[in-house]
C-alpha cells in the first residue's frame, strides 16, 4: 500500500509533461524575440526577452489590452457569483428536498445547454438589439449566467448528493432555515464541489468567444475577442501572439490554483458531526 505510489508517480509525471507540452511551447515562444520564435521548433537556448509582452501591453500604435481584460474579469466574476447564488439553493432543493419529478427539472436545465451557439446567436442578437443592450458588459454577464446555470445546478446537485442526507435532515428538523443550513452545514461539507463549480463557471465565461464576438464592440469587448483580433492582425509575429495568449490564459491559472486549495481539502465527517 505504502509503496504503491511509485509507478503511479512516474506515470503522473509523464502525463503532466505530455499534456503540458503545448502550453510550455507557448510560454517559451512568448519569451523569445521574433526571429528566434520563427524557428520552429523553438531553440531552448535562445535568449529570453520580454519584448513580446512589452509589445502586447505597450502596443506600438496598438490598442490597450486593459479594457478587454477588465471586461472579461467583470463578466466572468459577476456571472460566476450570480450563478452560485442561484444554483446552490436550486441544487439544494433538488438533492435534499425531494421535489416531485426532479429528474424532469434537471433535464429542463440540461436541455437549455443544447442550443448550438452558432444557431442561437441571431435570436439573442435580436433580443439584445431590441433591449438596447448591444456592446454592454452587463448583458454579457447575464448571458454567461444563463449559459453556466444549468451545468452549475447539475454539478452542485451531484456534489450535494454525496453529503449524507441524515446530517442535512437533522439540521432541517432542528428548525434551521435555508441560509443557516447552507452556511453552517452544506458549505463546509460541499466546499470541494462549490470550488469546482465556481472554477468551471469562471473558466467557461472567461474563454467564451462566440457570444462576445457577435454581441460586443469597442466598449464591451472581452479578452478572447481581443486575442482573436490580435491573432488576425499580428499572426506573423509568433512571440507577440504567444505572449498575448499567455496573458489571457493567466487569470484561469490563478483561479485554478486558488480553487485547487479548496479542492484538495480532504474532508472528514468529524468536522460536522
Amino acid at each position, binding site marked *: 500500500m505504502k509503496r504503491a*505510489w511509485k509507478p*503511479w508517480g512516474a506515470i*503522473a*509525471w509523464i*502525463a*503532466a509533461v505530455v*499534456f*503540458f507540452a503545448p*502550453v510550455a*511551447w507557448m510560454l517559451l515562444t512568448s519569451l523569445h524575440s521574433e526571429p528566434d520564435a520563427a524557428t*520552429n*521548433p523553438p531553440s531552448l537556448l535562445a535568449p529570453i526577452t520580454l519584448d513580446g509582452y512589452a509589445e502586447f501591453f505597450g502596443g506600438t500604435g496598438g490598442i490597450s489590452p486593459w479594457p478587454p481584460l477588465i471586461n472579461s474579469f467583470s463578466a466572468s466574476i459577476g456571472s460566476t457569483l450570480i450563478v452560485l447564488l*442561484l*444554483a446552490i439553493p*436550486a441544487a439544494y*432543493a433538488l438533492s435534499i*428536498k*425531494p*421535489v*416531485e419529478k426532479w429528474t424532469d*427539472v434537471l*433535464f*429542463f436545465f*440540461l*436541455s*437549455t*445547454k*443544447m*442550443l*448550438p451557439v*452558432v*444557431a*442561437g446567436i*441571431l*435570436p439573442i442578437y*435580436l433580443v439584445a438589439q431590441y433591449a438596447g443592450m448591444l456592446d454592454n458588459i452587463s448583458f454579457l454577464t447575464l448571458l454567461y449566467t*444563463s449559459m453556466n446555470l444549468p*451545468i452549475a445546478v*447539475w454539478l452542485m*446537485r451531484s*456534489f450535494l448528493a454525496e453529503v449524507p*442526507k441524515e446530517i442535512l435532515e437533522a439540521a432541517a428538523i432542528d428548525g434551521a432555515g435555508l441560509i443557516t443550513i447552507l452556511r453552517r452545514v452544506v458549505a463546509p*461539507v460541499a466546499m470541494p*464541489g462549490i470550488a*469546482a463549480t465556481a472554477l*468551471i463557471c469562471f473558466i467557461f465565461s472567461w474563454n467564451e*468567444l462566440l457570444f462576445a464576438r457577435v454581441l460586443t464592440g469597442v466598449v464591451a469587448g472581452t479578452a478572447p475577442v481581443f486575442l*482573436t483580433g490580435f491573432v488576425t492582425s499580428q499572426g506573423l509575429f509568433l512571440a507577440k501572439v504567444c505572449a498575448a*495568449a499567455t496573458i489571457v*490564459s*493567466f487569470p484561469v*491559472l490563478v483561479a*485554478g*490554483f486558488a480553487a485547487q486549495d479548496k*479542492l484538495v*481539502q480532504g*474532508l*472528514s*465527517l*468529524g468536522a460536522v458531526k
Partner: protein
Amino acid sequence: MSQQVVRTRFRRGDGRVAYAYLAPALLVLAGLLGYPIYQLVLISLFDYGQEQVSGGAALEFLGLGNYRALLSDSQFWTVLAQTVGFAAVCVLGTLLVGTALAVLSTRVRTWARTLLFLAALGAWATPAVAGSTIWLFLFDANFGFVNEVLGTTGFSWTYDRWIAFGLVAAQVIWCSFPFVMVTLYAGIKAIPVEVVEAAALDGASTWRTARSVILPLLRPLLLIVTIQSIIWDFKVFTQIYVMTNGGGIAGRNLVLNVYAYQQAFAASQYGMGAAIGVVMTALLLLITFGYLRALRRTGEEL
C-alpha cells in the same frame, strides 16, 4: 428504511418551499433561453437573409421548406454522420483521459498532483483559438516539433480527411479532459474519508472499494460529465474552424456546427442556419434522453 420514513415526512408541505428555492434559477433560464429558442424556431420557418434583417425585403414564410431542403441535401447527411462519429471519439477519449487522471491525482504525492493540475489547468486555460493555433504549429508538416521528433518531416497532419479529424479530436480531448478531471477529482475528494476507511477496515481490496463504494457515489457526476461532453463535442466549432481552415478541403472535415455557421453567416441564409440549429438541438435532446432512458432501464439511480 428509517431514511424512507424521514424522506416521506419531508415531502409533505415542503414541496412548495423546494419550488421556491428552484424558482429563481428556473425564471432566469426561461427568460434568457426560452425566448431565443422560440425566436430560433420562428426564424427557421422563414426565408430569412441579409435583406430581411436590414428590412430591405419582406419576410417570406416557407413553413417547413428550410427543413425539407436540408433533409434532401446529401451533404447534410454526410456532415451529420461525421459529426456523430467525431463526437463519439471525442467523448470517449475525454472521459477516459479525464477519469484516469482524476484517479491518478488521488493516488500520487503532492508534487506529482500539483504538476498534473498545472498541466490540466494550462490546457484548460488556453483559449480555444490560441490552443488550436499552437497545435497547428506543433504538427506543422515541415517545421513541426512532432514531425521532428517522429522523423517524419514533410508529413501533413491536416491533409488526409481522417488523420485531420484525429488531430482535431486529440486537440478537443486535450482541452476538455480538465473539466472531467477536476469534476471527478472533487467528487472523489468529497466522499467522506470514513466511508472509504470503513470499506478498507471491512477488508475490501482497493479495486473492490473503488467499484462498490466510490463508483456508485460518483455516478451522478459521471452522468453529468458524460452528458456535458456529448453536448460539447457535438457542437465543436473553433477547433474544426481553425485547424481545418473552415472545414477542410471541399468541406470534407465539416461538422454540423461549422456547417450551420457557413449556411447562416457566410451564405447569409439565417433561416436555413436556424433550421440546422433546431435539428441539432432536437438530435442532442434525443441522444441524451436515450442515454438517460438506457441508464434508468439498468436500474441505476441517477
